[in-house]
């Protein structure tokens, strides 16, 4: 039996699947869906043209920019819409790097940045230097500043995420900015945008709409007024000089609507999610030989990561999925490369048997209890097959 999308429908008495991977992508917020449908009809024209449909598209784009700026407490002219969070990361980091190419040569970044930051740093001309983190995955501001001072040829930019996308640990962004002095800070805020207030101290920052319940294919680049930012890629003749390509007006407006809704409800949703994560952390820690990682308190409200000794991550994810529980894993055997998660490696915690659980806005206590009821049996089953 299948539904319209071709996925098997659960039989009678079988509970529907539970999606516990919002940190990879949050389901579209209902507020975004309505706006998206309306904007598809009204926002198709080229916002640079002078006719009526174009003015209409331009108005929607400007509205989206103002709404996003309001939610993030920045100026509208600091907001650029990009084609993805990754593109926003690339433009933000590399634009600051290019803007200071006369004063330095090296990009400094924490060891636990998203791969989008690491790939951009590797691609950029010059050196890139990684800064170690502690067992919780947190970077030390004074250590980062020391590395920045010693950087070969001088540092152009430092990259520190607002919060870690795999383990949830919040980074001391404001303290990092203060310690860095005049070296500009790039903040990848993709994991936290909408859920937590944007930290202070950045020269450029990036966010991704589908992480907060907006549509995929829409990123947000923030460049502080007065920051020395230079386009690292070919320029274009669009509405916004920091962007390139035809503006995705409907997605921008839907992303803005989702962000407004998420920010309006974040106190209530965040508190509920945080309590559920506490419940998962406690429940999972009771399973033998399981290590829950990341900061238990100063963390993202909606996610937790843990690792199960002797267990193959792929087997874990596959068996949980068979039981209707969709989770992510940072273990090598589940990744696109043969390398284990660079985040877990940098923290010095177990890289195999890894599971990341992240809650959607409507994840219930019953969903969490179902996960906690299934997990010990799944872990026990995999270990039993190994004779452990």
């Amino acid at each position, binding site marked *: 039996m299948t539904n319209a999308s071709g996925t098997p429908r659960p039989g009678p008495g079988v509970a529907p699947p539970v999606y516990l991977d919002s940190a990879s992508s949050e389901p579209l917020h209902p507020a975004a869906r309505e706006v998206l449908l309306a904007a598809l009809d009204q926002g198709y024209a080229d916002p640079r043209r002078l006719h009526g449909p174009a003015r209409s598209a331009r108005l929607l784009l400007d509205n989206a920019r103002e709404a996003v700026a309001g939610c993030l407490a920045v100026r509208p002219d600091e907001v650029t819409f990009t084609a993805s969070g990754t593109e926003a990361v690339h433009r933000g980091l590399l634009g600051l790097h290019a803007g200071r190419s006369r004063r330095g040569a090296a990009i400094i970044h924490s060891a636990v940045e998203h791969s989008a930051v690491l790939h951009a740093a590797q691609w950029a001309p010059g050196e890139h230097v990684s800064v170690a983190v502690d067992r919780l995955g947190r970077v030390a501001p004074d250590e980062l500043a020391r590395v920045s001072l010693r950087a070969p040829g001088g540092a152009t930019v430092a990259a520190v995420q607002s919060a870690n996308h795999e383990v949830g640990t919040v980074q001391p962004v404001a303290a990092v900015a203060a310690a860095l002095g005049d070296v500009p800070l790039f903040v990848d805020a993709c994991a936290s945008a909408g859920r937590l207030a944007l930290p202070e101290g950045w020269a450029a920052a990036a966010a991704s709409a589908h992480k907060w319940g907006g549509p995929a294919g829409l990123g947000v680049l923030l460049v502080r007024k007065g920051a020395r930012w230079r386009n690292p890629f070919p320029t274009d003749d669009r509405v916004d000089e920091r962007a390139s390509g035809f503006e995705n007006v409907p997605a921008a407006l839907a992303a803005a609507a989702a962000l407004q809704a998420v920010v309006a409800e974040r106190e209530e949703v965040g508190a509920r999610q945080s309590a559920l994560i506490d419940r998962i952390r406690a429940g999972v820690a009771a399973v033998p*030989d399981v*290590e829950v990682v990341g900061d238990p308190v100063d963390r993202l409200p909606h996610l937790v990561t843990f*690792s199960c*000794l*002797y*267990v*193959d991550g792929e087997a874990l994810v596959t068996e949980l999925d068979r039981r209707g529980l969709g989770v992510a894993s940072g*273990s*090598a*055997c589940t990744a696109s490369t*043969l*390398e*284990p998660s660079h985040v*877990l*490696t940098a923290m*010095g*915690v*177990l*890289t*195999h*048997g890894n599971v990341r659980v992240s809650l959607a806005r409507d994840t219930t206590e019953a969903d969490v209890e179902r996960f906690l009821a299934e997990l010990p049996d799944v872990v026990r089953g995999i270990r039993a097959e*190994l004779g*452990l």
Partner: protein
Amino acid sequence: MNDVDLELDCRGMLCPLPVIELGRRLAEVPVGGTIAVVATDVAARVDVPAWCRMREQEYVGEGVAEDGTPRFVVRRVS
């Protein structure tokens, strides 16, 4: 190499097999004895020390086998 009580050849094994092997065979060395895990899998560099922390054993350190393969030494403390 004779500097350890037991050496496990885990070359070619993918994670988590080297750590499973370590867990299975720890009992073959006496308390106070040492066991080496020779592993090509890159995850072993993190997972062997993490295993020691979780199982309350002592991680002695990393060296190389004669063929240059990384070799991780553990002391059984309980």
